[in-house]
């Protein structure tokens, strides 16, 4: 609340309100971890209940999943560079890497939607079995987060272009970075416990 600025800290940590916002977002990520943990738990319980429908091995396509993983993990890396450039006060570099991040995120989404459409085409829908219900909702929740993230980052880019780097825009970008890395971590768990485990089962 106080407008006191501590110039010794990175831009996004300079005001008290900014520090609170960042801590608040960490707490929010804690809640998100519980949310995804619950979805993973549900998948763990229902993941082998096929009700006569297809199994993981029947539908998963290794190549496409590898491409998705590659796109999303790379986007996390470019996100990191974007924040690095922000710390160097290089707006141009920051925006460029942020746009790369979004393009990679968009590519991931495209691949994921294509994957879902392929499954539905093969008759593996959300309504087919408990396995597919929990699969689609877990993956869909992650995909929805990515979608929201892309929309959010576009608003962010507009604001950075309008206002330049201020403690407020820097904080917003930093928080978006936390969010984006978090989605990456969730994907690593999805990749491991849904795809890899499903293929070796």
């Amino acid at each position, binding site marked *: 609340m106080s407008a006191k600025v501590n110039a010794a800290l990175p831009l996004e940590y300079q005001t008290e309100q900014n520090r*609170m916002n960042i801590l608040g977002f960490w707490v929010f990520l*804690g809640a998100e971890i519980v949310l995804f943990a619950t979805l993973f738990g549900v998948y763990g319980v229902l993941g082998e209940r096929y009700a006569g429908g297809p199994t993981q091995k029947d539908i998963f396509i290794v190549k496409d999943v590898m491409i998705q993983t590659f796109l999303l993990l790379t986007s996390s890396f470019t996100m990191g560079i974007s924040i690095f450039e922000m710390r160097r006060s290089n707006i141009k570099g920051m925006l460029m890497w942020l746009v790369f991040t979004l393009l990679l995120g968009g590519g991931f989404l495209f691949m994921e939607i294509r994957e879902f459409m392929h499954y539905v085409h093969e008759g593996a829908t959300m309504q087919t079995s408990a396995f597919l219900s929990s699969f689609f909702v877990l993956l869909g929740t992650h995909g929805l987060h990515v979608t929201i993230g892309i929309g959010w980052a576009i608003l962010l880019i507009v604001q950075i272009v309008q206002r330049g780097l201020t403690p407020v825009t820097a904080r917003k970008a930093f928080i978006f970075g936390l969010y984006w890395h978090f989605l990456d971590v969730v994907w690593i768990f999805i990749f491991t416990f849904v795809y890899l485990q499903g293929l070796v089962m």
Partner: protein
Amino acid sequence: MGIKWDEFFVTGDPLIFASQIGIALTLVGALAGLTYFKKWNYLWSEWFTTVDHKKIGIMYILVGVVMFLRGGIDGLMMKGQTAVPENDFLNAQHYNEVFTTHGVIMILFVAMPLLIGLMNFVIPLQIGARDVAFPQLNALSFWLTVSGAALFNISFIIGGSPDAGWTSYFPLAGKEFSPGIGNNFYAVALQIAGAGTLMTGINFVVTVLKMRTKGMTLMKMPMFTWTSFITSIIIVASFPIFTVALALMTFDRTFGTHFFTISGGGMDMLWANLFWLWGHPEVYIVVLPAFGMLSDIISTFARKTLYGYKSMVISIVMISVLSMLVWVHHFFTMGNSAGVNSFFSITTMAIAIPTGVKVFNWLFTMRKGRIKFTTAMLWALAFVPNFVIGGVTGVMLAMAAADYQYHNTLFLVAHFHYVLIPGVVFPIFAGLYFWWPKMFGYMLNEKIGKWHFWLFVVGFNVTFMPMFFLGLDGAVRRAYTYSAETGFGPLMMISAVGSVILAAGFAALVYNIYWSARNADRNIGNDPWDARTLEWATATPVQHYNFASLPEVTKLDAFWHMKKNNQLQPLSEDEIEEIHLPSNTWIPIYMGVVFGISGFLLVFEWTIAAGVAAIGILAGLAFRSFDYDEGFHVHKDEIFETESKWRKGANKGVKNHVS
């Protein structure tokens, strides 16, 4: 498209028809009254768009009290129905709906708003802050709660109420056995309100961690702040589970997935587990802040520092950890192995240890204290024995083998009412009497308060004590009627009479609010109870910026020590600085409205329309993102004027109403 237009309004029941007319008339009356007295502007700018934690707290309390009326009428209807054998006042379906809405409303729309309301009002003041960490988010939490409550409440006139119990177990709550849209109201309304609660949790974690005034270390925080902090952590850790469970319920009911349905490989027990993984911590979410309020109230009126402060803190932390490890005790009889049941029996009984520590600490706080028997203190005193009855019967229920006898009987119903009413409702009443002067600048009348107290406590015991014995005799819960041969009649009648006394007690509170608002003395000063914590160090009612200069704390019970050592800061003109505060905003109430509309459409399974309405939600988020309002500054002159006014009054002519 789940519903036909001719089923839109609930028809065919004279009781509901009467309430439909009643609601319509009340709405028209309220709108006309607001227009006639030209209060729209006042309401909008002072309340609907406010981000002031004190006003938001008061609005939460208002919602809680109104919902208490609704939930209470549900309770009275059940008691009326079961007062005599073979009664036909309510039919089975109507009875199912009434006990479902009673449970949901009392827990989620009475206990939660009242506690969060008091937290909102008191916590920033107790820690010497000017607001919560995220004032706008706080307003959003409130309006989402209102949105959820409104959506849930219209279910009984539009579309039909949920009827599968507040636990809404599958398969009963699934589409197969509950084909109407009633249970959609449950899934969607609680989802919206739950999102608001989660944000409150995040807000208060950060507020307590980051906004404490200078010198207030964690171990110098008042106990209500401590318990609210721990409660907020439990909220963050458990509400997302409920979010997922409700979302999966919506998917099962609306989109035909197979999470909890038996067909398609789903698992009904998964719902029971997810529900109680949230539901049991929820019990502690409501009871811990109540414990904290009692601690502050007891030490104020016993005029002693809280006994065993450190052990209190350790106890609440232990309770919060254990709260996550006991959920299976809600379904000991539903097919777990003996080993699993034993584990959860032991964790459940273990909760009695920290809780027992707390009870003894309260008793030792009162020992050798010079107790003032104010209404607030009476509630705290009545809490102890009544809550112990609830706790001891809880340990009885915790024994899995014995639970096979008690399960699904009125014994259980009596037990949790003995926990939740003395453990949550009594402390809320105590808190209302205690902090009312801080909120409004006048006290609730002590004499009417004693009527309220005695009627309520006696009525409560007469209502629920017989239910222990009915339960042991084999009376099952949620049964809308019973035959005369069971012999339940007399005790059921006593219980029904008790509920009328209970209701009279609540009526006394409502009358007290009305009477005191009109007649109570306004000249009471800032510290009418001779209290101990920082909220009493500032004006009554509190000025919008809370503190002219933030207080500095050296000890627990900071304000008490300031008074004793004559360290109350006098007002000096050069110490005053401009105060920065956030501006009002329309976005939270707008979000409440669009969430409500979108949720309503989703309840009726008009999914495309709901999706279109959800664009309004995204638009609200975008507006918020582009909102760079910097807030405003309160000028020195204004602060000086406000401060000298109440400080002058504090020295002369103020009546101490208590001693």
